[in-house]
């Protein structure tokens, strides 16, 4: 079976490289940087004078899991994650990467939890997760504290493995976070990635997936909540480069307060050899107040029409009047009704994960975020009586064929 090289020939993506010089300081005119408020990212984009400061990292790993470090270019490090921007290449230069190796056929019942706590300095981490054949694991990376953080997560999903990676951005309000997550999904393997971005000043993460065999499945879920002044950018890239693979991307965001800005860019490439694949990407944004901006850009590049399906949808709007009326007609106040609708908007994604313990953990994060943001900002949650629904939906595949 033919597997295309990982070098995606796409006008949307810069060529990957391990050389910082290939990614000069962005000016804002580059496609991949056109949304970002560059002055705020400045500190993240400059090369550190020396190596990065250490970051406090705690890790609980059960039996069947080996923890070690990998130097640049050692082992699988650098085989999957090919940096596509200046931040990810800086993180890829970290002298020692954390290496989490799950042995073949090991099935973990408890999640591996990695807590990254910033200490207010510039910091970088490169985490390599290497799963064995037919292994099963959940890896949760929780980012906390304050930092100017370059972070990469590189995931090798071996054949028939079932790997779930969760990245929670629960940073202090002044944190900056950039970097890249990348996974290679093996034959008949299942990869699930959950991104949860609530904290930080500015967060910009590239999340990429490709396949190393047929029959692999990738599900990429995202939840984000931008409060006043927060910038959150999630860039998805699914390289559907092998036959009979499937991918499903679903990102949900809520925005509230002046200057809240979110960006979602979803790219799916369906290669010539990727026959029989199916793919769908969706992004929904719930705009809670005036003064927010949600950018949503679904892209689909298709080189073969011999597929099961490919589609995308993007919706950005305010509360649904009918939902609020229905809930309020049962006695819920306007604020209770809105809270429930937002909670449901996020829970709707979480329930797809199908791992009860993880679902509860993520729900706890959502509830904590809503308690912090919605309850506090309640007085400002006053949409006009007849909010205008901005709606663009494309449930049917929108296919641009490239011959």
């Amino acid at each position, binding site marked *: 079976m033919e597997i295309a090289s990982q070098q995606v020939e796409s006008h949307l993506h810069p060529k990957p490289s391990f050389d910082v010089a290939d990614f000069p300081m962005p000016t804002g005119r580059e496609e991949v940087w056109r949304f970002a408020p560059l002055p705020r990212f400045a500190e993240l984009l400059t090369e550190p004078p020396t190596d990065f400061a250490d970051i406090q990292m705690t890790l609980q790993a059960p039996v069947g899991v080996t923890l070690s470090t990998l130097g640049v270019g050692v082992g699988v490090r650098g085989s999957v994650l090919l940096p596509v921007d200046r931040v990810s290449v800086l993180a890829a230069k970290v002298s020692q990467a954390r290496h989490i190796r799950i042995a073949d056929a090991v099935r973990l019942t408890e999640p591996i939890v990695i807590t990254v706590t910033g200490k207010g300095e510039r910091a970088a981490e490169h985490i390599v997760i290497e799963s064995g054949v037919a292994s099963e694991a959940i890896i949760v990376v929780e980012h906390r504290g304050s930092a100017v953080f370059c972070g990469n997560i590189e995931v090798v999903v071996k054949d028939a493995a079932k790997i779930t990676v969760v990245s929670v951005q629960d940073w202090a309000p002044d944190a900056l976070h950039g970097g890249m997550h990348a996974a290679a999904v093996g034959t008949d393997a299942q990869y699930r990635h959950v991104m949860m971005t609530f904290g930080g000043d500015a967060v910009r993460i590239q999340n990429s997936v490709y396949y190393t065999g047929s029959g692999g499945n990738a599900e990429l879920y995202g939840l984000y909540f931008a409060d006043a002044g927060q910038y959150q950018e999630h860039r998805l890239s699914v390289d559907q480069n092998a036959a009979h693979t499937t991918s499903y991307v679903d990102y949900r965001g809520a925005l509230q307060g002046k200057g809240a800005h979110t960006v979602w860019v979803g790219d799916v490439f369906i290669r010539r050899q990727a026959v029989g694949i199916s793919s769908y990407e969706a992004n929904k944004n719930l705009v809670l107040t005036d003064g927010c901006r949600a950018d949503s850009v679904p892209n689909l590049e298709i080189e073969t029409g011999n597929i099961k399906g490919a589609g995308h949808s993007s919706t950005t709007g305010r509360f649904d009047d009918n939902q609020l009326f229905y809930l309020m*007609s049962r006695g819920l106040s306007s604020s209770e009704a809105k809270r*429930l609708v937002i909670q449901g*908007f996020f829970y709707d994604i979480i329930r797809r994960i199908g791992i009860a313990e993880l679902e509860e953990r993520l729900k706890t994060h959502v509830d904590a975020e809503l308690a912090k943001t919605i309850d506090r900002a309640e007085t400002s949650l006053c949409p006009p009586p*007849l909010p205008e629904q901005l709606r663009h939906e494309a449930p049917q595949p929108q296919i641009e064929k490239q011959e």
Partner: protein
Amino acid sequence: MADLIIRGLHADVLTEEGSKPILKGVDLTAKTGEIHAIMGPNGSGKSTLAYAISGHPKYRITAGSVTLDGVELSTLSVDQRAKAGLFLGMQYPVEVPGVSMANFLRTAKTALDGVAPKVRSWPKEINAALELVGLDATFGARSVNEGFSGGEKKRAEIAQLHILNPMFAILDEIDSGLDIDAVREVAEGINTYAAQGDRGVLLITHYTRILRYTKPDFVHVFVDGKVVQEGGQELADLLEVAGYERFTRGHA
């Protein structure tokens, strides 16, 4: 008695083209302990009456009054009307993905009672109400109305009626889209609620079918935004035979 008293009610529907008058002076008194039916042809404004009384943002009361137990509803917010004892069973119940029925009803019950329902007895209460209307216990964990069939949505409305047990229920075309067995079960659900003796029911329908199982004490014929005739069960029987034509002539 906690009566629903509607006097000279005028209401507009707000559309993108502007507002359009629908209710043109509704007078109606429905006492608790009684079952009232409003019958009328399509487009006569029956649903508008239900929405206007409940405070839907797309409808605006322009004149008149509607009081429940002496409390003027038209100036209250939607949730305050519910707290005043009003319940609206909707023709098209709304889906709320990601919000479980149990969580929703628990939040609603807490809002109405001012205290959270008892953790121990609450699941039993939910299950009993679901069972009463022919829904199994799994519906408690499902998202509000999401993926329910038309009939399941209507049954779930009646289950909510039982759990929240308001002073007065307006049920808007609760019988539409139901097969004959479902009509009977929904009607029995309404009867059980009404049998408490101190609750009010205003049943809006354009078919007499459900009235075979839920016997109204009073029937109000609704045409062109107002009540044109009132009577007892015999009026429903007459409509069954003769239709609305004798009332609509000169209006259409």
